[in-house]
């Protein structure tokens, strides 16, 4: 089936083409833009569902196109890529809705939505990449197209944020490029292979491979915001809320985390990684990140910065799960990719609602905000609870698997990390919930925009509630066959198959 083979490409195009058309439409064609966005998002979900169906039945979806001899641009749908692409597709839809509400009446919307859509295709591309080169291509496209979104407001802070963002990510990209070229010059084409590409045919110098692994992790670690490569993330929180929500909670950081998982499992292979002894290093790095991120989050008064540090901490769970290297931990890490996305996007949506509707940016100004915006804060609360890992929220499932995995792999020290992180999660998230619900407002809000019947614009309200419900649903229905958890297990079963 020809169409089948092109499905991965269609997924990428379903947001790329609307993005390009949006640029051409210009600023004023608001309805056309909205329709395009939705059509794109829905098409993407449709194509992704088709692939999900197919991959479950072991259909192969692959597009391969030689760039130069022996270097292919290749898209490939495997269970892991579909996990990420599904997440992107669904959250894109949510965020599109949100962004339409959020950016009402602000300038440069065509630019915003154009780049936004291209970003989504880039992350879809990252998800569907079949080799490291393709991954790198989309990774860099993602970097570039995110930049205009980060500096969207054009204020000095935005420009500064953008500068820092670029400084980190472009350097990361360069390191990645180096690593990929190096690896390729040693072992030839680098297609992602379940169980690891290098697992069998390794005769090179161990130290060389360790270096390459380090470089790869450093390259991905920039986007995954591994400490000390995390500096860009809090700074780029100056972006509009939908950007922070989708890109910095989901697409960009996840791209990094996704890359780390790919490298460990599909390039090096767990076996080989443990032989090299690099997994412990990764686990330690991830643990430090988790602790450090949480610790910093506690001291932030700016809501989005607090969430940003929380992201730094939470995304490293994925790396941690990968590094612990056992079926359970990996399941936890992989499923956290989805879960963290859902929870964090909820939090960001809510934070954006507060900023947009009430002009509230600081944690210290949140007293009683839930009386004014109960639904938003309900979503926030669910997200926050999930982050802490309370059942029956998504975070619980992730932590459950990570914890079990750590024990299974005989690395009980990881559980200490998780405990510390959980406590700090509670310390930096619960007070927000507490002051929003249980304190009385200090006075009138800085910029209270009245949106009529609802507490805020309807488009701003639906997405967080949607993602919050998903946060609960993915955990409550974790054992159903369509749940992320089951999909993660499916992925892991393939990675660990003999």
């Amino acid at each position, binding site marked *: 089936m020809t169409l089948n083979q092109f499905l991965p490409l269609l997924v990428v195009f379903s947001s790329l083409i609307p993005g390009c058309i949006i640029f051409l439409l210009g600023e004023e064609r608001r309805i056309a833009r909205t329709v395009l966005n939705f059509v794109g998002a829905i098409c993407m979900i449709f194509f992704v569902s088709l692939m999900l169906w197919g991959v479950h039945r072991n259909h192969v979806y692959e597009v391969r196109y030689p760039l130069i001899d022996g270097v292919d641009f290749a898209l490939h749908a495997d269970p892991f890529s579909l996990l990420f692409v599904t997440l992107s597709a669904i959250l894109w839809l949510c965020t599109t809705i949100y962004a339409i509400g959020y950016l009402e009446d602000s300038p440069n919307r065509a630019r915003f939505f154009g780049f936004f859509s291209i970003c989504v295709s880039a992350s879809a591309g990252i998800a569907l990449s079949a080799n490291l080169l393709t991954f790198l291509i989309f990774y860099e496209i993602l970097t570039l197209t995110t930049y205009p979104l980060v500096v969207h407001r054009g204020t000095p802070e935005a420009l500064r944020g953008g500068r820092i963002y670029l400084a980190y990510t472009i350097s990361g990209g360069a390191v990645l490029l180096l690593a990929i070229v190096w690896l390729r010059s040693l072992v030839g084409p680098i297609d992602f292979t379940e169980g690891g590409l290098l697992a069998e045919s390794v005769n090179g110098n161990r130290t060389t491979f360790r270096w390459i692994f380090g470089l790869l992790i450093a390259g991905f670690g920039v986007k995954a915001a591994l400490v000390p490569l995390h500096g860009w993330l809090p700074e780029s929180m100056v972006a509009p809320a939908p950007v922070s929500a989708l890109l910095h909670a989901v697409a960009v950081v996840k791209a990094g985390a996704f890359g780390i998982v790919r490298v460990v499992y599909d390039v090096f292979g767990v076996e080989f990684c443990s032989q090299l002894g690099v997994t412990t290093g990764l686990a330690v790095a991830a643990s430090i990140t988790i602790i450090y991120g949480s610790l910093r989050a506690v001291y932030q008064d700016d809501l989005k910065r607090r969430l940003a540090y929380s992201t730094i901490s939470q995304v490293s769970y994925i790396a941690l799960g990968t590094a612990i290297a056992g079926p359970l931990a990996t399941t936890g890490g992989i499923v956290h990719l989805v879960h963290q996305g859902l929870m964090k996007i909820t939090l960001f949506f809510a934070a954006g609602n507060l900023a947009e509707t009430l002009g509230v940016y600081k944690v210290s100004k949140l007293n009683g905000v839930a009386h004014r915006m109960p639904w938003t804060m309900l979503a926030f609360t669910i997200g926050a*609870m999930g982050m*802490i*890992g*309370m*059942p*029956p929220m998504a975070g*619980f*499932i992730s*932590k*459950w698997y990570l*914890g*079990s995995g750590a*024990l*299974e792999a005989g690395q009980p020290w990881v*559980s200490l990390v998780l*405990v510390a992180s*959980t*406590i700090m999660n*509670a310390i930096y998230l*619960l007070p927000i919930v*507490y002051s929003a619900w*249980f304190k*009385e407002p200090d006075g009138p809000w800085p910029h209270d925009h009245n949106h009529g019947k609802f507490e805020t614009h309807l488009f701003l309200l639906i997405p967080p509630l949607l993602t919050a419900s998903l946060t609960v649903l993915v*955990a*409550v*229905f*974790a*054992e*159903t066959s369509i749940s992320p*958890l089951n999909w993660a297990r499916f992925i892991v079963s393939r990675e660990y198959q003999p």
Partner: protein
Amino acid sequence: MSTFLVLISVFLPLLLVTIWMAPCCRAWIGRLSVWAPLPAIFLAILGDDISVELPWLLLGSRWGLDTTGRVFLGFTATLWLAAGIYARSYLKRDPARDRFELFYLLTMAGNLGVIVALDMVSFLVFFTLMSFASYGLITHNRKPESMRAGRIYLILAVCGEICLFWAAILVVQQTGTLYFDGLAAKLAVSPKRHVITGLILVGFGIKLGTMPLHFWLPLAHPAAPTPASAVLSGAIIKTGLLGIIRFLPFGAVAIHGWGVAWIIAGIASAIMAVLIGLTQHNPKTVLAYSSISQMGLINIGIGTALMAPDHWTMIAAALLLYAAHHAVAKAALFLGVGVAQAEIRLPGQRMLVNVGLVVAALSLAGLPLTSGFAAKIALKDVVNTALEPWASVLKSLLPITGLMTTLLVGRFLYLVWPSRQHAHNRLTPAMAIPWGVLTAGVFAMFIGMCFRGIVVPAWVSLAPKQLWAGAWPIITAGSIVLLFWAKPSLRKLPRRLHIPEGDLVVPLEWIFDSCHRIGSTLDVTGISDSIKKRRQNIVDYVTANAARVLDRIELGLENEVTAGGLIGMLAVLMYALMTL
């Protein structure tokens, strides 16, 4: 039918919560929520032992009913129903009644869910729901002291959750099963059972108010509105016991160390709580300390069970009995606080109220012919099974606890005695009936137990020796109480000896605050600012100089003589490189 009941008892409150979200529906949800525990009551009475598999839910769930569950469900649901009815009236004029109902329903859902959950994940889910939702009940009136109580409660709840989470993960990892069914046997052979037991005991011990993890309780329970206090003290703290029963490998293996530890903790709770409680002047705080002390007795039972796996069946029955008894009696007392403080017009009513209060109070102390009496007897059997020297220690201790409990309830009665209180509101039937029913339940339970043969042999327990054994501490203590009551000089003694509510929390808070103060006096931002500034200076200096150097070089390169020289030198160099 039972399946349906299992599901509906949990889902009904949740469903009501969902509907509550729509503001227009809140009024009738409020009315309806009172009856939400009914399915659970039906289930407890009529249901079969059943387990419902819900493989799609969470990580694969199993809900259902077993003997333990039935007992717990019985008293829990009853308490919720009573408290619900009571609350309708009690909070009639409270502007935040909607909010109360929300948390009430959520807590109830959690509480009922915990009981029907037969797998760890569901158990944790409902336990969490219950724990966090009850925060809303505790902080209902938004007074600073309530908020403080809530904060401390929340901190401990989170810590407890973490312990339980890790315990659960360890259990699953060790046994490979998520279900309680057959867990004990598998856990008994696990090398990590000590760690697990520790985590479980700490996690649930917090809920049970075991010393030294108890300090949230005297703050939290009094802070909640009276009906909420009733369920908190009556039903919710019992889930700690339920959890311990569910998780630990009772009957399969002896975990001696923890058993001893827990017995000591239990003794400490039983005695210390009374001593501290005696100095309180808020009747609800006194009741809270009483709960701690009563739970101390339960903890003694748990400790014993850890030592003596062979007697588990008996101990379990005793513990269940004790839990049920305490639930009903304590709830009756809490509701009684509201009743006693209400405006009572008719003297007959006053009499009834006074009698009811005294009966319920003494039942706690083990007054013969009440459920407390049966519970104490059962407990005596339990402590006999403990290893020496604990068996003898405990045996001699039990009457003392009865005596002390009597002192404490005496203090309570003194504080709550209706004639002395300023009336808050009128006593309505909606308040009086639940209270009355629960108070009567103290007797009813005893009778019921006798007839059902739970207290075996029925008449043995009523033998004069037994009666005396049950009565003498009460009489002794009662006399002391009356003495104090009568003499005004002695009456002031407890006030002078007053220990702040939450005892341990005071030094803890002080330590925490001190740390915080010390931390904030270290001017971290100032230091980092100065570093930043210095760094900026260096950067500026380097940039400026680098710019000058770069300009110079570029200008130099643009000088044609330099350029020519470079061309020439390049040529010469290339030639040289080729030749050499």
